[in-house]
């Protein structure tokens, strides 16, 4: 039997038995490309995701909220780095991935292209955006690619803090003044639909889902996960005392799930293709950070090289 045939058979058996594919195993080119693209997009989302909330660190109302927000944004950086680490096991290069991001050749989650207008947005991002991310990410802990699955386990453990701090922040604001409650409702109104879009296009318009499910890269369809998120979130909104901005949202006792209104898919397409409210600013900020840090990276590399020379003399 040829090496290729052996590789293909081993790969198929690994997937079939629900075992993990490891970096040096033979894998189809399409699997490798899909994994690199998915992990890189996920890493980019974490890194770009630092910006909307990072903007509020200096304006957090108390030292406690500032410390929490700092820790959270630092986690986002950490998550990005775990994921770049996983992508590198497949032969991707971290510097190259960053360039692809700032040159617009690789994407990141559409959700981070919306602005954070008030401090309530920090809470709503934790509650809804991180809540949706958790729905998406928990099944990825069983992704067929080992390094990605392991990174996701670590990330999911930390995301729970993100969601809870957001919800607690909102509960605090809801116990405050009328103006504070209005801020929470306003932020909820603005983030609800974009949060539902985080699960991607509807199943009828998601051409890669079939292959990704067959490779066990993806465990549930976009619509399944979206429905799960809606069902989880409705009672949380009730407990908080906010209204989700969807007149069609109601319990369907026949299905045992919530029905909800039609998502504006043209908005998702627009934001993904670069025309969201903050796309240009997010990328410009990332590019600036990369350029501003270039001399530090070079100086550290030069220093390390010089020290190696000295030790070897």
């Amino acid at each position, binding site marked *: 039997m040829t090496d290729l045939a052996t590789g293909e058979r081993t790969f198929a058996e690994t997937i079939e038995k629900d075992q993990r594919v490891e970096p040096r195993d033979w894998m189809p080119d399409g699997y490798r490309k899909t994994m690199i693209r998915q992990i890189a997009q996920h890493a980019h989302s974490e890194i770009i995701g630092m910006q909307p909330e990072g903007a509020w660190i200096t304006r957090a109302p108390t030292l406690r909220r500032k410390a929490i927000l700092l820790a959270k944004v630092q986690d986002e950086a950490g998550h990005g780095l775990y994921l770049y680490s996983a992508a590198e096991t497949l032969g991707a*290069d971290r510097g190259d991935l960053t360039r692809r991001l700032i040159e617009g050749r690789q994407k990141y989650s559409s959700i981070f292209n919306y602005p954070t207008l008030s401090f309530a947005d920090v809470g709503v991002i934790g509650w809804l955006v991180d809540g949706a991310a958790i729905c998406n990410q928990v099944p990825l802990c069983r992704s067929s690619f080992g390094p990605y699955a392991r990174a996701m386990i670590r990330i999911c453990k*930390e995301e729970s803090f993100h969601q809870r701090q957001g919800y607690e922040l909102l509960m605090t604001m809801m116990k405050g003044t009328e103006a504070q409650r209005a801020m929470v409702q306003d932020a909820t109104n603005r983030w609800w639909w974009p949060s539902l879009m985080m699960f991607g296009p509807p199943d009828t318009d998601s051409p890669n889902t079939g292959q990704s499910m067959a490779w066990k890269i993806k465990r549930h369809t976009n619509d399944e996960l979206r429905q799960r998120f809606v069902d989880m979130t409705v009672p949380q909104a009730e407990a908080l005392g906010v209204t989700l901005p969807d007149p069609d949202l109601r319990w369907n006792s026949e299905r045992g799930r919530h029905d909800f209104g039609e998502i504006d898919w043209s908005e998702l397409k627009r934001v993904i293709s670069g025309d969201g409210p903050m796309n240009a600013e997010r990328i410009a900020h990332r590019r600036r950070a990369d350029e501003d840090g270039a001399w530090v*990276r070079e100086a*550290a590399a030069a220093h390390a090289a010089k020290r190696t020379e000295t030790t070897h003399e």
Partner: protein
Amino acid sequence: MSDEQIRHEWPLFEVFVRAKRGLNHVHVGSLRAADHEMALHHARDLYTRRNEGVSIWVVRSADVVSSGPEDKDAFFAPSGDKVYRHPTYYSIPDSVPHI
């Protein structure tokens, strides 16, 4: 993008963390750093933000030598037919205690 800029990329390090005293160091992932010292500091910031460790090793990824999936048979198959290396290979009457 020129090769010049790509060459400035810091080397890759593998990170191993001892979760607590009495346990082995376990591989947790990798990171980029200019040298070993910076790799240790980055590893602390990246992999031990929540008391996940009491000790860290960092190793240049390029220095790691590993067996490949293609070596699997040559490396590991010979131990498969040595069942006599396992205690259950030996039948001892139930009446014999503590063995």
